[in-house]
């Protein structure tokens, strides 16, 4: 018979004090992450990327002076998960909202969190112009190749042949074109200070992501320009895959269309990380 196993919520975070003597917590929720359980599907990397952002806010000591901008997309409730001031933008306009905040408060750390529908479809104008103006903002970009929230429609980043609810026979370049590669596209814009892409598919890649994120943040804090880290992320539900399979699919297939790596790095004195 199936039944609930543990009714108490994440309150048992502090282990018994007697044991504290010789046990130290080496991996726990970052301070900047709220206690609220994520609403994401099982195996969705939105949660992972949230955690990494929260880690960075902790690491850079930015909790008290960060303003984050949420997208419209599955991460629409991101404001519930970060312990910093948050603004819910309209779909695609996070870079414009971030511009409004950053210009008003140049000493705050301002980030946007955006999906590929949000950033690469409806919000294309806004991200390009924020990048061209060299807005001192940091963009955390989640490329899962699909519109998750609205039910799995094709995104501009969907792979050729990819089956979605608006391309049931697979994406056809003749009528829908080719996937837009955001890092490649933005790299010609001089206001961009840092651009990188990484799949969130393994502990190693997650660590690479941290390195990239640090630089994208420094692009802002060191007043160089716009920083963006694109993560290749699974949408197991809309892809119709098990979470583990979705990660393998990224590593085997998605990276071919979206090669990982650093595309722009204008940081003057890169710190070894």
């Amino acid at each position, binding site marked *: 018979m199936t039944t609930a196993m543990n009714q108490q919520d994440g309150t048992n975070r502090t282990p018994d004090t007697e044991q504290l003597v010789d046990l130290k917590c080496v991996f726990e929720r970052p301070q900047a992450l709220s206690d609220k359980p994520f609403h994401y599907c099982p195996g969705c990397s939105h949660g992972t990327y949230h955690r990494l952002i929260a880690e960075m806010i902790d690491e850079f000591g930015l*909790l*008290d*002076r*960060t*303003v984050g*901008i949420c997208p419209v997309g599955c991460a*629409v*409730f991101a*404001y519930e998960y*970060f*312990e*910093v*001031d*948050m*603004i*819910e*933008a*309209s779909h695609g*306009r996070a870079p*414009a*909202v*971030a*511009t*409004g*905040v*950053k*210009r*008003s*408060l140049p000493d*705050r*750390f301002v980030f946007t969190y955006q999906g590929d529908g949000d950033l690469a479809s409806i919000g294309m*104008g*806004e991200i390009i*112009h924020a990048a061209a*103006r060299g807005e001192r903002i940091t963009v955390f970009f989640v490329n899962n190749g699909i519109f998750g929230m609205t039910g799995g429609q094709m995104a501009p980043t969907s792979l050729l042949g990819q089956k979605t609810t608006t391309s049931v026979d697979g994406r056809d370049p003749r009528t829908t074109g080719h996937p837009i590669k955001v890092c490649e596209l933005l790299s010609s814009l001089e206001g961009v200070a840092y651009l990188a892409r990484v799949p969130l598919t393994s502990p190693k890649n997650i660590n690479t992501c941290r390195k990239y994120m640090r630089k994208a943040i420094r692009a802002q804090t060191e007043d160089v320009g716009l920083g963006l880290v694109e993560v290749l992320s699974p949408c197991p539900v809309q892809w119709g895959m098990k979470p583990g399979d979705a990660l393998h699919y990224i590593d085997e297939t998605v990276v071919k269309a979206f090669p990982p790596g650093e595309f722009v790095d204008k940081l003057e004195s890169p710190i070894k990380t």
Partner: protein
Amino acid sequence: MPAKMQLTKGNEALAMGAIAGGCDCFFGYPITPQNEVPEVLSYEMPKRGRVFVQAESEVASINMVYGAAAAGKRAMTSSSSPGVSLMMEGLSYIACAELPCLIVNVMRGGPGLGSITPSQGDYFQACKGGGHGDYHSIVLAPWNVQEMYEFPALAFELADRYRCPAMILADGVLGAMMEPAIIADNAPPPTVPEKTWATNGRNGRAHKNVVNSLVIDPYGLRDHNLKLQAKYKKMQCETRWDTRDVDDAEILVVAYGISARLALSGCKLARKEGVKAGLLRPITLYPFPTEPIAECAANKKRVLVVELSAGQMVEDVRLAINGRVPVDFYGEMGGVIPSPVEICRKIVEAAQ
């Protein structure tokens, strides 16, 4: 330099009025007939350490305003009819998130690309809801260059008081014309109430602030809407209007903005022709002076509404009067400015 009388263009007065009103940030995209607003602000704002950004579009402008307003700043944008139409989604967000800010619409002839000539065809959009959902902005309608200068400060003040967007609904004539107006070149910035809700970085605050217009639970969203509606009710006390020669009038003319000036001349001409006409000018289009119009019209023979449109505000006048007095309408569209003589003719007709 202290305030002094200067021959000033409406758009320039508006720009200087925004500065005097403590505007911290301007975001806008050029469009005729309001281009002097961003042009003046593009050098006057940075000079004062304030923010000017030429946005890539009106969609971006309104969302930059959203961001700066969320950050607790006095933020504004300015545009004209087609550009303002592009802001409707953003405006609905701002209203729902209860952010104070200022949107200026120097209306031009529509619909579509239309023309750059003056018009008042955007009353419905401004007052009823061009965007989706039940929301309102405070809408101010200046009628001379002096008010073009003074209303930004008023708009910011009201917006802050009610945490809502405020709109200045002007038109191409008011934007382009020059008149003597008392303008302060270096007014001290007004004191702005502290915005404890602003998302400006916690900076020691015990809790985070969130600016949001998403309420996924229907009952939650219902309650939020009820809160907004209660606020709109409370706002009614800000209703402003003005009258000329209404006491003895048999014909009441109701008109706003530039139409009110045309109508004022029309009333004067009508009196010369022996018809007692008076003018009621709504200054706030939202909240609309429903009661004042109803009262003022009560003992009149007829009411004539004059607009540069096919008839938009006239609906609110009819709703106010609710059948008690006949309401006529005279409008011109497309940038044609009716002459006072023509208005006088309509008044005289109504009196018969």
